[in-house]
């Protein structure tokens, strides 16, 4: 456990028996943890392990119930985030805290805009902002409004903002969740540069591979306790997973190769999403798990949303079981047995303030009502069946969905579409923000659904995940499909080559090396 031995100058942060309780939950249980000056310290653990609580103690949102925190050897008890920032501790959260209608520069320097005679000195503001943007290698105009930026740019902007105050400790909470590989690479470069400048970094991630790319030491938390701190050299993915879950998980993606692909379930021809230049065509079969890879912004999400009718499309025909169907709204899609599990569960997939059963039955209230009158008993028993089948952990079907953990929320979304008896399930980033244990359960669920004859389309930015669970992968690049790879041709290099194809070539050309023609 936490060895506090070194006699060298005081460590930058030290937790001493720190405990934090919430009513009914012991969020942190006597944590002893040392974070050394200038290191990249990675925190891993399943959802609910206590990572976020730890971060919130550091940034002044919570105060510990027992024990204490030392900052450079001195007791540290910030009363607000502002106090934490003044002490040199800065957090980049998963949710962005930016003002969308203001410019990039105003956002970076929001708390202390340069002034001249009481007015904002815009000349200096933009110059200073430019310098901050250079630091993180972000090539955008400081005059651009934040709402016009992409997710990755916004993420880097948050980091630039955090750096604008002289931070001693920078805490990054899931910084790569929305980034593509080259952006992640750039982020790691920035982290290396910061480290060279002596900044200490506390890094939180679900993506275990990153731990080795970026971390010096790794601390594993489980159920509010510190399990172990390892150096990057002594750690390995199986070992970390074992520490996180407390048991052997075996292989991370144990693919079950019993592929019995059946008849064509869905065919999309010349589908051109609104605002896109190119059309795509593809088909999905019964029993098939079809992955969709590509960079963020390559048109993957737009394509699946257009199939579902969530956004309008310029052109395209959609066939279900060989019959052309007219899909102009999600309502049409649902009636044709197609469903979409959106990327953003909380905002688009669920009604957080309503109970579990209401979220499940909303896709087909006709099944639990008669002449417009709801049958409460039928609703609850039907939901209970799905809760049991999908192993959704909830005290009862009356529980508000907002109180469930991320993995159980995702299962609730799946349950609502199973309640509708949908045949084509389109998942957009099904495991984002979900911990390892729950991920694995979701993969098993996907295989079970496929085995039951459903067709499953999975959009994901996590390549190992797609390669681990899919029968076939489509690769999107700049709005086109540049790769259609069967399982025996899966390789990271191959997929990435396809994903970058249209960006590298500049002008699209068919039949170039490294990528098969569009499927």
């Amino acid at each position: 456990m936490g060895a506090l031995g070194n006699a060298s100058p005081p460590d930058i942060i030290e937790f001493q028996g720190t405990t934090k309780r919430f009513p009914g939950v012991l969020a942190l249980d006597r944590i002893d943890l040392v974070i050394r000056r200038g290191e990249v310290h990675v925190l891993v653990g399943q959802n609910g392990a206590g990572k976020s609580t730890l971060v919130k103690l550091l940034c002044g949102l919570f105060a510990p119930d027992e024990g204490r925190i030392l900052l450079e050897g001195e007791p540290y008890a910030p009363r607000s985030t502002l106090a934490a920032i003044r002490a040199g501790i800065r957090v980049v959260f998963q949710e962005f805290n930016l003002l969308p209608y203001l410019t990039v520069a105003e956002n970076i320097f929001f708390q202390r805009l340069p002034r001249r005679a009481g007015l904002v000195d815009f000349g200096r503001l933009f110059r200073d902002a430019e310098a901050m943007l250079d630091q993180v290698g972000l090539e955008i105009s400081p005059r651009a409004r934040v709402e016009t930026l992409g997710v990755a740019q916004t993420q880097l902007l948050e980091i630039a903002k955090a750096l604008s105050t002289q931070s001693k400790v920078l805490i990054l909470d899931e910084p790569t969740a929305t980034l593509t590989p080259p952006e992640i690479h750039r982020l790691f470069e920035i982290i290396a540069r910061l480290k060279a400048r002596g900044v200490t970094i506390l890094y939180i991630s679900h993506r275990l591979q990153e731990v080795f790319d970026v971390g010096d030491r790794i601390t594993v938390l489980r159920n509010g306790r510190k399990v172990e701190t390892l150096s990057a050299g002594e750690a390995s993915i199986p070992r970390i997973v074992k520490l996180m879950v407390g048991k052997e998980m075996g292989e991370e993606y144990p693919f079950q190769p019993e592929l019995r692909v059946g008849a064509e379930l869905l065919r999309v021809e010349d589908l051109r999403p609104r605002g896109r230049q190119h059309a795509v065509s593809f088909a999905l079969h019964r029993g098939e798990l079809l992955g969709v890879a590509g960079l963020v912004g390559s048109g993957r999400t737009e394509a699946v949303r257009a199939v579902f009718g969530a956004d309008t499309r310029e052109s395209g025909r959609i066939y279900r079981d060989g019959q052309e169907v007219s899909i102009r709204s999600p309502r049409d899609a649902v009636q044709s047995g197609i469903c979409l599990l959106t990327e953003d569960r909380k905002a688009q997939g669920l009604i957080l303030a309503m109970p579990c059963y209401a979220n499940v039955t909303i896709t087909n209230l006709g099944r639990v009502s008669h002449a417009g009158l709801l049958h409460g008993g039928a609703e609850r028993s039907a939901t209970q069946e799905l809760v049991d089948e999908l192993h959704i952990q909830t005290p009862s079907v009356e529980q508000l969905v907002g109180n469930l953990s991320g993995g159980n929320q995702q299962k609730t979304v799946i349950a609502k579409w199973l309640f509708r008896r949908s045949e084509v399930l389109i998942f957009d980033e099904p495991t984002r923000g979900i911990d390892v244990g729950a991920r694995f359960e979701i993969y098993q669920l996907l295989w079970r659904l496929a085995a039951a004859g459903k067709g499953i389309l999975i959009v994901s930015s996590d390549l190992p995940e797609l390669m681990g669970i899919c029968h076939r992968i489509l690769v999107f690049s700049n709005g086109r499909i540049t790769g259609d790879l069967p399982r025996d041709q899966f390789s990271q290099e191959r997929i990435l080559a396809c994903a970058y194809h249209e960006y590298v070539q500049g002008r699209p050309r068919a039949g170039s090396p490294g990528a098969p023609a569009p499927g």
Partner: protein
Amino acid sequence: MRAKRILYLLLREAGIGLALVLLALVFAAVAPRFASVTNVTNILTQISINTVIAVGMTFVILLGGIDLSVGSVLALATIVGGLIITSETLSPGVAILLSVAGSTLVGCLCGLFNGVVCERWKIHSFIVTLGMLNIARGAALQISNSRTIFSFPDSFNEVGAATIFGVPIIFLMALGVVLAGRFILNRTVYGRMIYAIGNNEEAVRLSGHAPSLYKVAAFTLCGGMVGLAAIMYMMRLNIASPILGVGFELNAIAAVVIGGTSMSGGKGSMMGTLLGASIMGVLSNGLLLLGMGDFARQMVTGLIIVVAVIIDKYRAQALMRSSFQLEPARPGAGKGTGGAP
């Protein structure tokens, strides 16, 4: 600490019902005539019309919208109803029936207009119903030549004054409307959709529904309630006038909000609305009995609305805290990752 918990529990369980009882007790103690049968009957009659309008308003506000046109639409509906009921070519019985139908239909059509414009062009209902507020008022003045219509059939006027076991029929009608509204919200597919859309419209759309249809229906329903309220108004006052109903929208919104319905939608109940309307009625009546003038009463009523919303905020917090305490801890399933506020 203990006192605080008891206060939380009271707020959570009793809420505004408790406030109403306390208010009534205070008035009964200080204003001798407050608790008399005549006065209670009087209050029941006075709150009836606002209650019916507020029921319609509850549907709209639960969907995150608002209807500012109800006062003007009420005036227009009384004019249409009044013209039909005083028509000399019809026998009294037929005239009454047609008047009720006409008035309700006018209300529904105005609501339909509100709903369709809001949804077809995606304009906030605040603006659209502000327009309808003027349209309906203008139409009422135009159609009636800005004259008041009176001398309705006696049988019609009598209903407005009649009581059953001392309870005004007009209040029983309002109670019926509240119970019907409650049934719709709690027991029907339509009610479920209203709560769902009010909470998260995009999630409902992506679940394969067309939220617009439900919203248009809610505005139409609200208009229909206003048409019904117009008939009750005519029964009670025995006149129809194009200048009736000024400021009614604010009373209805106040009743809904005091009743605990969230202005951003998705949370609230019909019983709350009835209690909200009752609190306003009791307050206005009680202060009058204490000899307070119109202007001062208006100020107090305004203050109460603000206080009610503040209390409701604490109530929401109390609900959250107590639900935390009631929930058993479940590793993995609970809210470990800093889920606490």
